[in-house]
């Protein structure tokens, strides 16, 4: 498959959007991935699941505002140029 950098950017935007859409209290706590269920485990033994939950929460916190801008730009560009 021949990748271009543009397809990499597209894939990255789609993945980050997918992570940002996961709602904290409607979805993540229901499946046991909420952030309040991750305390405990002192010492350097966080475990994969806790690390993943932390990663999801930090991606959502950090990328919320830039994603608004990036998505708007993408929408405008796709409308104009197909």
């Amino acid at each position: 498959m021949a990748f271009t950098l543009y397809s990499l950017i597209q894939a990255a935007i789609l993945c980050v959007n997918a992570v940002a859409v996961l709602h904290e209290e409607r979805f993540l706590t229901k499946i046991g991935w909420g952030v309040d269920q991750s305390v405990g485990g002192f010492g350097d033994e966080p475990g994969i699941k806790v690390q993943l939950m932390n990663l999801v929460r930090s991606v959502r916190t950090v990328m919320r505002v830039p994603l608004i801008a990036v998505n708007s730009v993408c929408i405008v560009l796709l409308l104009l140029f197909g």
Partner: protein
Amino acid sequence: MDLPHHGYRASKQRGRAAPPAGDSVLFEDTSSAAPAMNNQGYYTPGYNMGGTSNDMQGGAGVNNLFTDPMANAAMMYGSSLANQGKDMVNKEISRFMSVNKLKYFFAVDTRYVLKKLMILMFPYTHQDWEVRYHRDTPLTPRQDVNAPDLYIPTMAFITYILLAGMALGIQKRFSPEVLGLCASTALVWIIIEVLVMLLSLYLLTVHSDLSTFDLIAYSGYKYVGMIFTVLCGLLFGSDGYFVALAWSSCALMFFIVRSLKMKILPSLSSDSMGMGSSAKPQLRLYITVATAVFQPIIIYWLTSHLVR
């Protein structure tokens, strides 16, 4: 060597080769991490010194230009402007990545490059795989053959693109867009691999000192194997391609496993806590082996369409 002796230059003698005499005036050697901002007030007299001493070495023919005061003033002004621009660019770039760290990866010499290429192609006789340290900082590639560098991956990447263009041209399938497509495909695969490695190292809380540049270096070493495979495929046909593919895959897998084993697996932590990473050692092993197994797959993927 009669270089102008500025204060920060005297401390440069530690490990690096001195710059050639030709560029002593305009480009001072900033790789010794000297604060250039402190010398802001000294630029004009410094460059006057540098200008006249260079002029004395430069030959009698250009003396007329430098005796003209207007041209002299213009040259000093121009060089100070260029310096301000250079400082601004450096400041902006150093916000994103540390340039000194990047300079560490390009501090190579011929002997290191030759030995590293030999190890990449035939790693089975190399005994000592440990990266040596010197007072808590890793040694530069010039002094330690196990240190990762970015020179070989960069050169191998460019050579691979040129070789791909040549291979396609031999088969009369060449067009300029294909070259760009090949380059961006290879670049995207590097980015994907580095991101997956970073993600897996983060998820398993592996506290190693592998920085992003180290990972880029280790994933860029496969281009040497790719170049070798494509060359053999072009010279010896399809059989030569598969033989070279098998050889370079095994060599590269051995190299990657031995190199990353030192960094990822906790075999040398004598004070590891009892249950610190108890559930993890096999996962770390899986990461190392998965990285190694990924290399032949990607070599095959990126070169099979070049050798039909």
